[in-house]
C-alpha cells in the first residue's frame, strides 16, 4: 500500500509554484496529485503526452500499460520514445523518459495486453484510468472494468486529423461508454491509425487534454467533461462541445440492474482483435 503524503516538501513547493498558485488548486490540490495513482492504457500517440503532463504536474504514481515495442513509424507522434529506444518495450521507453522529467514519480510498467482475466488486477490500484488505446475491444473492456470498480475513465481517441474526448463513469449521472455505444461498430467500419494515419499534433492535443481532465478529477477542480463530448476537427481547427445523454437506464453494465456482471470476451463481443494491427477476427 502506498505511503500517504500529508505535506509538500520545499522542493515540491519550488517546483510546482506556478501550478500551486492557481485558484482552486493550492497545496491541497498538489497533495491530492501527489497521493494519486493514474493508469494510462496505451503508450502511443495519446498516452505519451498524457503521461508527460501527468508526471510533470506531480502525479505521485503512474501505471503504464502497453504490450508493444517502439517502432520507427511511432516517432512522428509518440514523443516519449526517442530514436535510440527503437525495439524497446513502449512502457520501458516511456518510463525512462518520464523519470527524466520527474524522478520522484513512481512508475509501474504493465507490459502486457489487457484482457478480461488480468484487467481487474491491473486497474484496481489506480484512482483514474486513461483510455489511450487504439482498438474497440480494449475500449469496451476498460469501460466495463471501470464501471465494476467504480473508477472514472478519461477516454481520448484520434484518427487522421480528428480527435474526440470525454470522461465516462464520472459523477452520479455520467454515462459510461456502453450508455453511448451499446453495440460495437461493424468491424469493416473501423479504421485504425495504421490504415488511416494520424497527425502527431492531433494526438498531442487530445492526450494533453486527457491529462488535464485527469488532474481536474483528482484535484476536484473545474467542470469535468462528463456527459459532454469534445470533438475536434484539426483540418478546420474547429472544436465542438456536444451534450450527450446521461446514464442509459437500461445500460447493460452501469444501470442499477446490469445484465453484465463479469468481464466478457471483448474480442468476440466486438468481432475484432484487441490491437490496431489486424483485420477483423475470423469467427469461423
Amino acid at each position, binding site marked *: 500500500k502506498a505511503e500517504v503524503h500529508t505535506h509538500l516538501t520545499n522542493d515540491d513547493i519550488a517546483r510546482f509554484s506556478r501550478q500551486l498558485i492557481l485558484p482552486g488548486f493550492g497545496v491541497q490540490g498538489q497533495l491530492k496529485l501527489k497521493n494519486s495513482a493514474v493508469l494510462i492504457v496505451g503508450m502511443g500517440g495519446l498516452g505519451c503526452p498524457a503521461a508527460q503532463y501527468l508526471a510533470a504536474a506531480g502525479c505521485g504514481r503512474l501505471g503504464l500499460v502497453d504490450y508493444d515495442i517502439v517502432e520507427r513509424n511511432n516517432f512522428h507522434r509518440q514523443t516519449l520514445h526517442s530514436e535510440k529506444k527503437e525495439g524497446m518495450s513502449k512502457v520501458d521507453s516511456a518510463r525512462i523518459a518520464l523519470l527524466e522529467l520527474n524522478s520522484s514519480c513512481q512508475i509501474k510498467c504493465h507490459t502486457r495486453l489487457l484482457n478480461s482475466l488480468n484487467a481487474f488486477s491491473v486497474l484496481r490500484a489506480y484512482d483514474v484510468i486513461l483510455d489511450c488505446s487504439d482498438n474497440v475491444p480494449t475500449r469496451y473492456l476498460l469501460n466495463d472494468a471501470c464501471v465494476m470498480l467504480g473508477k472514472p475513465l478519461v477516454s481520448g481517441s484520434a*484518427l487522421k486529423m480528428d480527435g474526440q474526448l470525454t470522461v465516462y463513469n464520472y459523477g452520479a449521472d455520467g454515462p459510461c461508454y456502453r450508455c453511448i455505444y451499446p453495440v460495437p461498430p*461493424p468491424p469493416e467500419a473501423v479504421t485504425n491509425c495504421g490504415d488511416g494515419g494520424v497527425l502527431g499534433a492531433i494526438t498531442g492535443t487530445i492526450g494533453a487534454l486527457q491529462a488535464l481532465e485527469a488532474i481536474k478529477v483528482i484535484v476536484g477542480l473545474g467542470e469535468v467533461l462528463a456527459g459532454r463530448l469534445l470533438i475536434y476537427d484539426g483540418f478546420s481547427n474547429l472544436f465542438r462541445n456536444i451534450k450527450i445523454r446521461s446514464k442509459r437506464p437500461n445500460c447493460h453494465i452501469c444501470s442499477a440492474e446490469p445484465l453484465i456482471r463479469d468481464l466478457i470476451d471483448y474480442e468476440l463481443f466486438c468481432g475484432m482483435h484487441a490491437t490496431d494491427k489486424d483485420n477483423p477476427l475470423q469467427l469461423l
Partner: protein
Amino acid sequence: MSAKELQINLEFSAGAELLFGNIKRRKLSLDGTVKWTVASLLKWMHANILTERPELFLQGDTVRPGILVLINDTDWELLGELEYELQPNDNVLFISTLHGG
C-alpha cells in the same frame, strides 16, 4: 423553388463525410409541406446523397452502431431519436466514433 421549404443543415465529422462525397457541410431544402422526422431524413439521405457503402451508415431503419447523431449539438437520444421532427434551420450532425490513439 417550392412555396414552402424546410431548410436544414447537415454536417459530417470524423470520417462520416467519406460516405457522402467527402462533403462536411450541406444545406438542404426539403419539401416543407410534409412533416420530416430524422427517420425520413435518413431515408432521403440514403436515396439522394449517400455515395458509399450504405451498410457503413445505416443498419435497418437507423444509423449503424458507432455513429452519433446530434441535433443542434445535442444527442438525438435526448430529443426522441428517429421520431424527432425536424425544425427550420436545425443542424443535424453525424459523427463517426474514433477508436485510434
